[in-house]
């Protein structure tokens, strides 16, 4: 009998194994009887199912099992809790940090302005020292703007992760599912479609990761010399 390829051979092997199992399970049933039933079924189906169809059906069944397993794994992550509770709590905490540091900065600035106002009433040598100190405080207070921008970037990223999780939950239809399996890998989540993550490149760069004032000055100078 000519071979129809590896899939055909695989199916033949599987069929032989199945026959063997049936023979073990039902020793009083002759293989010829099974063959008759199979022939009868195939004749009724009129060749509707070919070897390739059978392969396809097997693949579909495997795919269904994989999807079911993935859904169970995602359910085990309790992603709905992450979207509904953990991320909002984290963003609230970060917002609170911004508010508290902003309030503290305002209080520092107000006190510093009062101190600065005393400079006019002091002898010159003391006024100079006082103004030098208050200037340093004013400069340092700009940390609030930088940290506020950094935290805003993180909050925006968390909110996008929250949206992506909601997208995954909606996509795999996880309503009423109970967690059964261990955690799904982060790569599976990362590979899913959905809202894209915002870039963390905008806003203040991390120390050492971007140009400083001297770099900027050199760049501006090079542009200016190029346009002269």
């Amino acid at each position: 009998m000519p071979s129809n390829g590896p899939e055909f051979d695989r199916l033949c092997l599987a069929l032989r194994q199945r026959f063997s199992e049936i023979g073990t399970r039902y020793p009083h049933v002759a293989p010829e009887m099974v063959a008759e039933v199979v022939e009868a079924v195939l004749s009724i189906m009129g060749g509707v199912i070919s070897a390739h169809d059978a392969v396809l059906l097997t693949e579909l069944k495997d795919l269904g099992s994989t999807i079911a397993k993935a859904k169970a794994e995602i359910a085990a992550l309790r992603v709905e809790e992450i979207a509904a509770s953990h991320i909002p709590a984290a963003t609230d905490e970060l917002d609170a940090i911004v508010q508290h540091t902003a309030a503290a900065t305002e209080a520092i600035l107000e006190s510093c302005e009062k101190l600065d106002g005393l400079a006019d009433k002091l002898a010159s040598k003391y006024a100079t020292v006082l103004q030098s100190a208050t200037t340093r405080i004013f400069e340092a207070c700009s940390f609030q703007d930088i940290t506020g921008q950094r935290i805003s970037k993180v909050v925006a990223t968390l909110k996008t992760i929250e949206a992506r999780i909601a997208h995954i939950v909606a996509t795999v239809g996880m309503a009423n599912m109970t967690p059964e399996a261990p955690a799904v890998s982060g790569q599976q989540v990362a590979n899913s479609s959905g809202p894209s993550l915002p870039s963390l490149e905008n806003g203040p760069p991390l120390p050492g990761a971007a140009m400083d004032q001297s770099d900027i000055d050199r760049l501006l100078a090079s542009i200016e010399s190029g346009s002269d």
Partner: protein
Amino acid sequence: MDKTTNILIVDDYKTMLRIIRNLLRQIDFHNVDEATDGAEALIKLRTGNYGLIISDWNMQPMTGLQLLQEVRADARLKHIPFIMVTAESKAENVVAAKQAGVSNYIVKPFNAETLREKIEKVLAHA
């Protein structure tokens, strides 16, 4: 350097406006006005008499770059020196600002000396 220059500082973060105003006072610039967004800044610029604009880049809805472009497109305002103050230190941003006609560019966080040096430079060329 003319310390009587009227300066408009523009930032949507009021704490930063307060910090810059104080630093300007420390380096003897006392004629300082504030705007919290680009639209307010344009109204003040078109009705006032300013000799220097110090603006943040990262503002909504009008960015500092858009404000700069508006200023440079206005015949009555285009001569006013414009210093961009921002945490955005990427080269493409600096180039974009320069192409739009920025006079100088200060990276946050900065100190009073940097502010004084940049103001001195742009007013000398004004």
